[in-house]
């Protein structure tokens, strides 16, 4: 294995193991030695989060451990960011996310955000209790490929349909895919309100959107 391959492997396995103290210096060294930032992102960090996602699905790792890996990944991406911009490496995709108006439950949405960042998405998180107009405004500003709504409450589910209608009315729906999630919603409900897809878990959301972004 070449020096470069060894280093990429160390970044990947260190991220899987959640070891920031090992990974971050390696990322800096690799950049200094001229490894392209896009390669570091894809073959080191995203590959690591892929494995973490698979292990999680198999039941071989737990949410707090997955979050630790994601934390390492985000810290590494902070280091890479200026280099990615100057090397014109695009993110896998961009998404605007938030919980519905009236719903303050955001832990699931936060997890989705972390997992999407983990697979290389640029995530614009509007937080919780987001009115339809704010989604419209953010989509208009960031022009993402995706917008994601989450809700825990049945009472705030209708907000999803209203937000889609508001995006339609603003003429922002073309080329924009709406993904929904949260305990009371389902694939059937997604079809009913005209959303493009539904994901039951954060890891599923990451996998599905990554496929769609290709």
């Amino acid at each position, binding site marked *: 294995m070449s020096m470069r391959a060894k280093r990429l492997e160390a970044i990947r396995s260190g991220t899987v193991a959640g070891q920031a103290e090992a990974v971050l210096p390696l990322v800096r060294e690799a950049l200094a030695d001229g490894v392209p930032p896009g390669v570091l992102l894809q073959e080191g960090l995203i590959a690591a989060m892929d494995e973490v996602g698979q292990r999680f699905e198999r039941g071989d790792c*737990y949410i707090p451990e997955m979050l630790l890996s994601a934390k390492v990944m985000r810290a590494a991406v902070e280091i890479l960011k200026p280099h990615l911009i100057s090397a014109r490496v695009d993110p896998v995709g961009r998404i605007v996310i938030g919980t519905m108006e009236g719903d303050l439950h955001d832990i699931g949405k936060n997890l989705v955000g972390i997992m999407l960042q983990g697979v290389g998405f640029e995530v614009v998180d509007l937080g919780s209790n987001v009115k339809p107009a704010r989604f419209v405004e953010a989509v208009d500003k960031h022009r993402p490929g995706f917008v994601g709504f989450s809700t825990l409450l049945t009472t705030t589910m209708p907000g999803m349909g209203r937000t889609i209608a508001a995006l339609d009315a603003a003429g922002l729906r073309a080329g924009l895919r709406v993904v929904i999630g949260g305990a009371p919603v389902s*694939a059937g409900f997604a079809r009913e309100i005209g959303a493009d897809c539904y994901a039951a*878990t954060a890891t599923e959301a990451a996998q599905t959107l990554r496929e769609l972004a290709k």
Partner: protein
Amino acid sequence: MSILTAEECARIHAGSLDVLERLGIRVDDDGILALLRRHGARDGGEADTVRLPRELVAECLATCPPAARFADRSGGQRELGPGGPAVFWTGNALHLAEGRARRELLTADLAMLTRVADACPEVDGMVGTSVADVPPGARDVVGFRTMAAHTAKHLRPCIFTPPGATAIVEMGQVLAGGTPLGQQPLVSFGYSIVSPLHWSATGLGVFRNTAGHGLPLMINSEPMGGGTAPVTLAGSLVLANADALSGIVIAQLLERGRPVIYNLGFAHVLDMSTSVALTGAPENALLQSAGAELARFHGLPSASWMSTEAMLPDGQAAWEKMQTGLAHATHGVNIVWGAGNLESTLCMSAEMLVLDDEIIGAIRRFTRGIGVSDETLALSLIQEVGHSGDFLSTDHTLRHFKEEIRHSRFPTRSKRDAWDRQGRRTIEEKAAARVREILGAEPRGYLSPEQDRELGRIVTGYLAALPA
């Protein structure tokens, strides 16, 4: 919640002492009768009955150690006594449950069950069963070799004849190697009185033939409320306590200081519509938990079983085993056997065994309770996270989640979609798959060639000497 107050324990005990002193016990062994008489037991009015003065009972209780030690062949040793933890063992049986039917349990089945038990992390010991393909007089001895070959866990053979007990002590010594078996009790014994108050020759033979080594002896009363004991649970306890105390007297006269396990935990009640001696009813949980409280009153280790009347691993089996197992663990029973048992302990089931392993894990998490310390109160963390924040991504969660939230892969805990995707499996189907997985792995041998040869020699000699 305690079931009996100290005063109620004292009243039950006073009643039992009165039963032993005025009514006494029936003893089917002349040698033991003579031994009891030599130590102050009085004539019981019939040739085979003796009355036990309360002084004799008190003297024998006083020589019982407050705890019993149990070893396994992985180097583990546990001291079990009042206030200590619960260990969980498999159960005794005659049959093997297969789907909705059952058949006689054979040597190969005991080997299979031992392999499954060996793969169950929460199961601490293996109990012997009958093996129908072996002559009745040798089932314990052949079964013991089978168990020893497939697990290193503590072994508790069920003895069918007194010579079988002698052979198994010898086999246990082979497993213990150079260390005296009593110092490393890889094997323990026990027997049940025929309630009310009647010790059989076989039981007494087991007591005698296993004495002299310091090996733990479980003394079981098996009253049947409404059948062989008063239907009132308090009355059943009076008789059960008398049953067990009489066994303790005999055990101590045979070997002073022998560790005994006071076991009222096999207490039954009679179902008044089917005449089945129930084992998994709430009354069993009450009687058997009260038995642990009486054991604590005497300062002795205790035992019980987690049991069910269900014929297959189903909802009834799960609730009855959980109710009895949880009640016993929370009331301080030290040894709970019955993992894998169905049908009032008549049947073993490999699927039930893996389900019981999971039930035991949940019971253990419950009895571990809630730890309160500066670290677990997390006061500064609560301030730090503030309103509407999340604790999921904190280091505190990462540090503690594994010990605080017991992971369980077995019961359905996924979301509906994942459950749909994974084939909508029931817990019974998952148990069957787990059993297939365990048995699909390469069997692990636990005997060295020398041990195997030695055990083989003892078994062959035993079978050859068996009366035709």
